[in-house]
């Protein structure tokens, strides 16, 4: 297999996905098959080829900085799964500082 269980576990961690142990085997098999197909591009000599990130010629899009009406706090919070005191509530992120 091109991608091991450990690699699947590592990639899932980077992507913030929790996999059941049964899923590891299935994803390792499927991702290996896809990566095997993708590896076809390594046949090509690409040293002197430019990258394309966007297909339409685009210059930077600038505008004057200007104050304007934004979404209200109420609307911005309307879809929040847990909202408290005008903010999104999340599990504690920073450790409490020791006194």
């Amino acid at each position, binding site marked *: 297999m091109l*991608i091991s269980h450990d*690699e*699947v576990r590592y*990639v*899932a961690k*980077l*992507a*913030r*996905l*929790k*996999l059941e142990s049964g899923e590891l085997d299935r*994803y390792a098999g*499927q*991702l290996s*098959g*896809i*990566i095997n*197909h*993708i*590896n*076809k*591009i*390594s046949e*090509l000599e*690409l040293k002197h*080829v*430019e*990258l*394309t*990130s*966007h*297909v*339409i010629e*685009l210059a930077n*899009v600038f505008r004057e900085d200007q104050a304007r009406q934004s*979404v209200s706090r109420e*609307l*911005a919070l*309307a*879809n*929040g*799964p*847990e909202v408290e005191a005008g903010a*999104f509530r*999340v*599990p*504690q*992120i920073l450790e409490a500082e020791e006194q």
Partner: protein
Amino acid sequence: MTAAGGKGNLLRLSAIEALGLIGRQELTASALTGAYLAQINQHDNDVSAYLRLTATEAQLEAAAFEAAAGEGAPPLAGLPTAIKDVLVTEGVITTCASRMLENYNPIYTATSVLKLRQAGIVMLGKTNMDEFAMGSSTENSAFGPTRNPWDLGRVPGGSSGGSAAAVAAGEAIWALGSDTGGSIRQPAALCGVVGLKPTYGSVSRYGLVAFASSFDQVGPITKTVRDAALMLKYLVGKDANDSTSVEHPDEIALPEDRDLAGVRIGIVRELVGKGIDAEVMSVFNQAIKKMEAAGALVSEAGLPHVEYALPAYYILAPAEASANLARFDGVRYGLRAGGAHADVTEMYEETRSQGFGDEVKRRIMLGTYALSSGYYEAYYGQAQKVRTLVVQDFAAAFADADLLVLPTAPTTAFKLGEKTGDPLTMYKSDICTIPVNLAGLPAISIPAGLAGGLPVGLQLIGPAFSENLLLQAAHSAESVIGFDKVSPLVKQAD
């Protein structure tokens, strides 16, 4: 009426025919919307094209147009329209067919939807799709698959399978879809309707839930090419809310009735034959003969790097998806996994594992892998270079041909469950459509005929911003091909 029989069958009308009848006061907007809602009531339990209906609002809007008919009515007034559930609609739950957004109630409306609504369309509801537009069969919907109106045991294609099935089933006069690797054209082909992917940047992506931002494009799924041109006319334009949108250099024109004299059409040699079903090729070749008889100058064209398009796409699109879908973290909107969480990381992981389906997880992991340290150069960087080669191939081919032509999909509609076990086999359903997205070009699928009772699509591809040329040729091809079949569900209503 375009077809034999069905006189009085409102479900056979094209959008342009319906507008004509409404304008001459031979048909009311309410009767039209009523006919489509009745068809939905009768058949959508079987087809499952819609995730959510807005029937009451649709009836009210249609009635309002009726009261204000005549002078000053907006140009698309009263056309019953289906909207893919990847486009956000203020006050109407928008799910992307994902558990992650099961209860998401958008606070704004996508520009493409807003523009059509300002032009007078009536929204019938939101259509089913592969979750976050990732798939080719609509089987990746968290809310169950859509079925093909031509054969309910088969898939409608995807990811805009709900929109294509709705149009084919007479459950919408036309629909909005989105196309990242073929998601408008392939389901249109499998459902026997017309699907147009516009040039990248010509239609705003604001309010289109992002999958792969450098590929995604919104476009029409319709019964006729002229309808696709009409809808496109109201979709295009630069949008201050999408910095990658541009003003289309041409005003979109409705195609005229004329032949194909002098139009140089190149058949992409690398993609015909190999990997395409024989019966699909046979229908395709007959259609090409008819186009040739109508004056088209048909020759072979080459896209020498096209076999590398699928592998490059399956690096770039998942890479972009893995970044775009990082926003679903259970904080600002969408699902948050229940229960107490030890820390914020656990909350993220549980939310994303419960909220995303199998294919979405697979693509997020694939994209994360391709972008991870040590692999970025080998995969992402190289794939961006392959993209350049594909762009150059198309440019060279357009030196000798005005348009390129291909079957839209390698097979007709396949059976439900037939390809779900093997992701790579499913990915190959898009072998003829993906190269177009890598190069950002406009392309259209039109029905070419039936094979074994199932529709086959013919795809025409043009240079960037050549929509008028592309639509004109597609309209002429549509006329000489003379496809006049409708799905059994529409025929029943005759």
